[in-house]
């Protein structure tokens, strides 16, 4: 059974990169794409994103559900921009060219359409990078990476251990839900939303209590095996930076610098074709 948005081991050059490299790439990539409204830059980034995504051999089933969700938000976002500031494009680009004749405040202008296109491209540039990062980075290796860049191992390890126990808690949730449903607590769509919210407590309380038992066991087990003994620790799944990592890091940094220079050289982060 494969779970949505979880690490899957595959042998591609992206999987072989260190978690640090991918983290740096992901951060710089997102920042660049957030800052820039330069359509030329964004289009290049979008193409790169899609290429990288393809090379990571990520399959649709791993990310499909989440992608659909994000698309839904994207649509809502785009509509909201139009509803609340239909003249945003005109303000930015300093001109107003209605597409279908002048129909008052909500007249759709070329500028508005162009602006919203830019927003959409920004989303689409970042999404593949996020997916790629999550599904190709081994969580333990990532925890090791975080530690390596100077973050205390407690933080990285908390993350790894959360990922370790999420499936267990999910199973337990399912079991508890079933047992409570059998007692008559309706959780299916037959019950009203209000009832369903109310009856969630019948599942959450037992889940919390049994999770607390679990936490007790885990923390004892960790302590008995020396967790927290030293200020540092080593990592079984740590991966040293290799040639490819340095190449990717340098390329990423160069790319971001160039992209931001192109974006900001004329004093505005918007590219104005009008």
């Amino acid at each position, binding site marked *: 059974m494969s779970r949505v948005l979880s690490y899957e081991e595959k042998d591609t050059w992206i999987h072989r990169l260190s978690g640090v490299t991918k983290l740096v790439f992901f951060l710089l990539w997102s920042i660049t794409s957030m800052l820039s409204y330069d359509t030329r830059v964004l289009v290049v980034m979008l193409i790169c994103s899609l290429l990288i995504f393809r090379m990571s051999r990520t399959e649709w089933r791993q990310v499909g559900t989440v992608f659909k969700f994000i698309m839904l938000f994207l649509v809502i976002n785009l509509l909201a921009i139009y509803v609340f500031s239909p003249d945003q494009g005109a303000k930015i680009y300093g001109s107003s060219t209605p597409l279908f004749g002048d129909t008052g405040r909500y007249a759709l202008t070329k500028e508005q359409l162009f602006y919203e296109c830019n927003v959409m491209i920004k989303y689409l540039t970042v999404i593949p990078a996020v997916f790629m990062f999550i599904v190709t980075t081994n969580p333990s290796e990532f925890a090791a990476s975080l530690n390596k860049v100077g973050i205390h191992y407690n933080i990285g390890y908390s993350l790894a251990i959360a990922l370790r126990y999420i499936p*267990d808690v999910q199973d337990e949730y399912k079991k*508890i839900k079933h047992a409570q*449903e059998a*007692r008559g607590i309706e959780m299916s769509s037959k019950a009203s939303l209000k009832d369903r919210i109310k009856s969630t407590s019948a599942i959450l309380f037992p889940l919390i209590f049994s999770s607390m038992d679990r936490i007790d066991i885990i923390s004892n087990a960790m302590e008995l095996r020396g967790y927290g003994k030293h200020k540092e620790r080593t*990592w079984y799944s740590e991966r040293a930076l290799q040639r490819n990592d340095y190449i990717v890091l340098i390329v990423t940094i160069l790319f971001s610098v160039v992209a931001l220079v192109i974006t900001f050289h004329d004093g505005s982060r918007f590219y104005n074709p009008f």
Partner: protein
Amino acid sequence: MRQVEPIITFKDFTFKYRAQVEPTLYDINLSIYPGEKILIVGPSGSGKSTLAHCINGLVPFSYKGDISGSYEIKGQNPQKLGIFGLSKIVGTVLQDTDGQFIGLTVAEDIAFVLENDKVPQPEMKQRVQDVAELMDVDTLLKCAPRELSGGQKQRVSMAGVMIDDVDILLFDEPLANLDPATGKKTIALIDKIQKERPVTILIIEHRLEDALYKDVDRIIVMSEGRIVADTTPDELLSGNVLEEHGIREPLYLSALKQAGCHILPETKPQHIESMDLSPYKDKVFDWFRSVSLKKKEISEESALEIKDLDFSYVSGKPILQDIHFTIKKGEMVSIVGKNGAGKSTLSNLICGFMQPDRGSMLLQGQDISTLSIKERGEKIGFVMQNPNQMISKPMIFDEVALGLRVRGVSEDEVKERVYETLKICGLYPFRNWPVSALSFGQKKRVTIASILVMNPDILILDEPTAGQDYKHYTEIVEFLKQINGQFGITILMITHDMHLMLEYTDRAIVLADGKIIADDIPAKVLTNEEIAQKAYLKKTSLYDLAVNCGIEAVSDFVECFIQYDREKRKERN
């Protein structure tokens, strides 16, 4: 006499948890020598776990309290060593194989100790590989915990503590979550480890008979915070200490005592296979001739009929296949088989949590396949293994009333029915108490009460006796027997507790690899080598007793003994 210094010593040691008024351990005097294999037994609350915690450092470093007297581990004061210093000497394998699996993969879990000790990666990888080979988990190094069986998880846990070359291995109820055959393998593995490495082994377990599958040097019996016996297995098994302190003795010994035999240490009662039975044979024969088997009358009316059930998650990989059986009204039936044989799936299908691919289910002749989970819940009650997984209200009354209230029953009727159920379950005096004030066994009763209140025809219980000591085990099952007898409620239990199956159920349905391989009285199932092997059960030691005494009607003998033993126990309670 002994030349070597003890590795563990306790002198007039007393310990009191900070939150408690009375000490949990009193005047412990104990010496354990390097290379010994010690079994520590005792009922719940006897202090055996606390003693273990003192040895591995959870007491007093995680669980605070007051210590008086002295103790030493490997010649050092544990309080100075600290929990980390102790972890270099004592390796602990905990009861919960799931909870202690910390890493995302087997290799990382094994390496955990080394990571915390800043061992460089190349050395770490080599050591993980070596210990994994020793424990026979080297092919699983990249697996995630959920891909492993209970036995494999336990081997990983053992590898994870043995990687550090500890002097003492401490096993905290290693058999609790395992099916009988896997438990047997675990005991054999512990034995093998000790033969290959110079370690001292401490096993805490209340399943004495299973733990004694391989030789131990000494058994320490704890009761109410004190050591009440510290002797060889043969001496201990010949006396009455176990019975007096509520610890279940091996079944074959109970049977011999039932037949009026006085057990002698020189007959080596530690293992039934090698025990000298010649002084007892005649008595056993006489006893068997003097008793007669009482047959329980079973109604002809069927309560639940399962017909040709198939289920699979992925087509082509069946989880259950051609499941076909009938349960009569008022029967008490156990569903047994190894972990992953499909027992839980079967109960999930009966309760409607999942839908079968094929087949039908009839409840008192009526097809229930169209009923929702909630509708089935009124007729088929399901009780989970851990009461903490079910209890969702802070007050006992509200918890039991929950099922009625959501079904819109009037408050007057709710009150009446809840009180009545609480009386049946012996919880009436606690009706206004908060659930948190109850013991584990009482909580279990509350969950059973909260199902019984809906007047189900059938009660399905998932591992009702897991983790219970002999006293609580008897309490819970006698209670079930009582509601089964008095109210004619049909009871179905999913279990890998061989005692429960043998002593309390009328019939056992044995699953192996998704198929029913036996559907017979438990005494017959547990005396059949082939079935036991296929389903990862363990043949009862009564079988060996009967065979070694030359009795031919083995399953009748087993059944007779069980019947008499139960009656005796009932009188006692």
